[in-house]
């Protein structure tokens, strides 16, 4: 009964999506305010219905209703309750329902927080989001319905959730990532709405900016969670594999990063309008493409547990309509008049343009690396592109991007006084180079890529710090001065520092990981990177839905003090007969100690992998800083003021804002 109610709510939600995508859009076209006003309640209703449908499916999982095919395929009565909840998005159908839930959630959020927007804009934005949702709901209802039942006879118990997914990381990783993927649909909807309405001014950029930043923050956190999950759950301590599915999440992130910066230029200076619109379409297209690549099964990867080739055609059709349609609209409606707003080659506009170009090259690099095997196969060749290609390309692109960033921080809109930028280079280089050289020396072996990585990380940190120093000058002291800077400025600082921290982590863990595989029996001691690993004992362990071996390994540091005792496990999940490695990890800011059990090699003896991973936490710490920065920027005062401001005054506001920011920047530069 619950499943049927959920199914019914989903169908009703689909009907609401149809209404949402027709009535307000037609209303906006004909200028009928009543029809346009319907957009908000429709968006709310759509969200409540899909939420109800999602809750129904969750309830089916909690109540172990194995007559529902999807529940039987992804759950088991022995599964702990929290994994029963996360199992809702552990398979294809449920993760699409989660996707639809998040999309309708974003739509409802736009409806709620758009009081200051002109009514026709709201109607168009919500209508476009409704259109996207129609596609996804149709996809769920036609090809991937999670509410289908086994009738008349249903299985006694479920096939269990993939053990890889029975983990805290997987409870939070997909929702966060989807919040990011789907969040870019808001920027997309704003862009398409602006094209439809022919109002491609600075205002739309200003409206879509906070939404893009929030989506980007979620995406950042989602990717970091995925990397963290892979690190501890896959059991061999890798954190990024350039796997097609990872690439699928990285591409919208790179494009989204470019979009955030490009929106700033369009808002503040009213230039790059066509480019920013294209970027907004492009970013969401890459999100959809990511879904397509995962769902269609045309790419095989570690994440293959969610693929099905039969559904590929449907997603492809969806993609052609959404992306092709919006690009056609773009080609017909984007402004071609050359902008008369001038800026010099030393202006902030140029630096952000360079940022956009480099990020686009990076995106295309990943896209190319992911697609090339497909294209080559179509042409009759067989190739596979692996990590060496991506590492090489990013080892080149990232330094160029970060070096430009470091200088670009000091640039002003329109023009930067000649010589100021060049004057910044020597102090930055003088601080960065010795630090970059001393790190490989401290870590014990010299590597050129470490010098490069540390150089750019320090370069960016110092550039940001010097800028903060200059901007926080105040008669009431530095602290007061820093507190008085705007939240969006603080957000930028945190975001950039976060990138530097991630670069440090990636550089050091890639080059200085120490890895040792040893045969260990009770009493055996092995040494890795100055730590003594003592194998104490190994015993059986009975879990709720698995049996396993659990070892106790004590770790002593150089002085012979006990650091910790780790308990790596080897589990066999009974229902699905899958063997999983649960690593024992001792986390630390400067290093992780990572122990995983291999195969038993004797009565009490095991092959054990011991790893010392320096600075690995910095990877995710940086991502947390970036996320925090993004959220801080959105909490900026001007967005709160924006909500109060009435829409009629809007163009005046923007003019004033532009003047303010221009004088603010000049003042900051003068200080």
């Amino acid at each position, binding site marked *: 009964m619950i499943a049927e109610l959920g199914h019914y709510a989903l169908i009703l939600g689909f009907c609401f999506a149809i209404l949402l995508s027709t009535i307000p859009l037609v209303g906006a076209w004909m200028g009928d305010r009543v029809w346009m006003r319907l957009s908000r309640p429709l968006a709310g209703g759509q969200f409540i219905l899909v939420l109800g449908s999602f809750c129904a499916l969750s309830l089916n999982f909690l109540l172990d209703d194995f007559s529902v095919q999807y529940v039987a395929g992804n759950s088991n009565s022995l599964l702990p309750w929290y994994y029963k909840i996360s199992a809702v998005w552990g398979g294809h159908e449920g993760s699409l329902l989660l996707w639809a839930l998040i999309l309708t959630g974003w739509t409802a959020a736009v409806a709620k927080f758009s009081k200051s927007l002109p009514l026709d804009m709201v109607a168009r934005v919500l209508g476009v989001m409704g259109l996207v949702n129609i596609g996804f709901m149709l996809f769920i209802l036609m090809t991937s319905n999670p509410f289908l039942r086994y009738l008349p006879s249903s299985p006694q118990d479920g096939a269990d959730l993939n053990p890889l997914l029975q983990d805290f990381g997987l409870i939070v990783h997909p929702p966060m990532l989807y919040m990011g993927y789907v969040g870019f649909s808001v920027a997309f909807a704003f862009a398409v709405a602006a094209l439809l309405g022919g109002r491609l001014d600075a205002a739309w950029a200003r409206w879509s900016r906070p939404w893009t930043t929030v989506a980007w923050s979620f995406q950042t956190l989602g990717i970091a969670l995925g990397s963290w999950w892979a690190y501890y759950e896959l059991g061999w301590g890798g954190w990024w594999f350039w796997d097609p599915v990872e690439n699928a999440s990285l591409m919208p992130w790179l494009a989204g990063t470019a979009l955030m910066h490009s929106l700033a230029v369009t808002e503040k200076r009213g230039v790059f309008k066509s480019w920013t619109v294209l970027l907004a379409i492009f970013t969401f297209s890459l999100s959809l493409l990511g879904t397509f690549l995962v769902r269609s*099964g045309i790419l095989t990867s570690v994440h293959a547990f969610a693929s099905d080739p039969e559904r590929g055609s449907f997603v492809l059709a969806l993609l052609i309509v959404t992306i092709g349609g919006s690009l056609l609209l773009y080609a017909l409606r984007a402004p071609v008049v050359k902008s008369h707003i001038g800026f010099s080659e030393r202006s902030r506009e140029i630096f952000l343009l360079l940022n956009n170009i480099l990020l686009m090259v990076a995106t295309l690099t990943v896209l190319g690396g992911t697609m090339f095997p497909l294209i080559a196969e179509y042409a009759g060749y067989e190739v596979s592109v*692996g990590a060496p290609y991506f590492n090489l390309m990013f080892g080149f692109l990232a330094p160029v991007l970060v070096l430009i960033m470091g200088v670009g921080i000091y640039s002003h809109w329109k023009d930067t006084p000649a010589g100021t930028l060049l004057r910044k280079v020597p102090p930055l280089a003088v601080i960065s180079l010795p630090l970059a050289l001393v790190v490989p020396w401290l870590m014990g072996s010299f590597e050129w890529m470490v010098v490069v990585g540390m150089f750019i990380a320090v370069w960016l940190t110092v550039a940001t710090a010097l800028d903060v120093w200059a901007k926080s000058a105040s008669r009431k002291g530095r602290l007061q001065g820093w507190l008085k800077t705007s939240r969006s400025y603080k957000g930028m600082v945190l975001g950039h520092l976060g990138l530097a921290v991630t670069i440090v982590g990636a550089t050091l863990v890639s080059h200085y990981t120490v890895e040792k595989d040893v045969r260990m029996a009770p009493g055996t001691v092995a040494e890795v990177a100055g730590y003594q690993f003592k194998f104490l004992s190994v015993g059986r362990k009975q879990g709720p839905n698995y049996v396993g071996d659990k070892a106790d390994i004590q770790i002593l540091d150089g002085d012979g003090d006990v650091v910790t005792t780790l308990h790596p496990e080897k589990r066999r999940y009974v229902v699905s*007969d899958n063997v999983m490695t649960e690593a024992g990890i001792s986390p630390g800011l400067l290093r992780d100690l990572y122990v995983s059990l291999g195969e038993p090699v004797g009565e009490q003896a095991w092959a054990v992998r011991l790893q010392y991973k320096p600075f690995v936490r910095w990877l995710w710490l940086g991502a947390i800083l970036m996320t925090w920065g993004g959220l801080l920027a959105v909490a900026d005062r001007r967005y709160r003021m924006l909500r109060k401001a009435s829409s009629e005054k809007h163009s005046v506001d923007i003019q004033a804002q532009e003047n303010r920011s221009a004088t603010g920047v000049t003042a900051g530069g003068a200080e």
Partner: protein
Amino acid sequence: MRRLILFVPLLVIMAMFFLFQQMIDHDPTEMELARKDKPVPAFALPGLRNPERFFTQEDLKGKPMLVNVWATWCPSCRVEHPYLLKLAKEKGVQLVGLNYKDDRTAALEWLDKLGDPYVFTVFDEEGRLGLDLGVYGAPETYVVDAEGIIRYRHVGVVNEKVWNEVLAPLMEDSGTRESEVKDTRVNESTGSEQGASS
């Protein structure tokens, strides 16, 4: 004129979609018919452990076996590796490794660390045999029967399910075929001997 430039993104995307459309009907987990039921292409490649010893297609005859394409740069290979060990140890499956576009030292280290399920491993540094076989990416596993004929190609990780549902039945088939084939081979050889003597 400037308006025309705006159509470029649309055209690029449409070209990409056309490609996807072509790809989508093509299931990478199924082998192209052209290579199915054909002998393993001729090759002469060094062994991974002993570079002096060269292996050829003749070494893949005699018993039905699984030829597993792997590399140290391939994360999924690591996922399937424990199961391959299990197949070799517990089920006595003949596994031959094809180390594909890899680094010899890294590959040897991998086998030392994780265990070696393979009877022998062929070292295909430039991916030449991979190209002839039509390797889509690692990991891939081919079912080769006793006569050195490719019976099946599996793209992706081999696990319990794949083995039980797909590979094991094919291996059994190849086993039965083996006896039939042997008979014909005896006839052929006797035939040719007769021809030579007469």
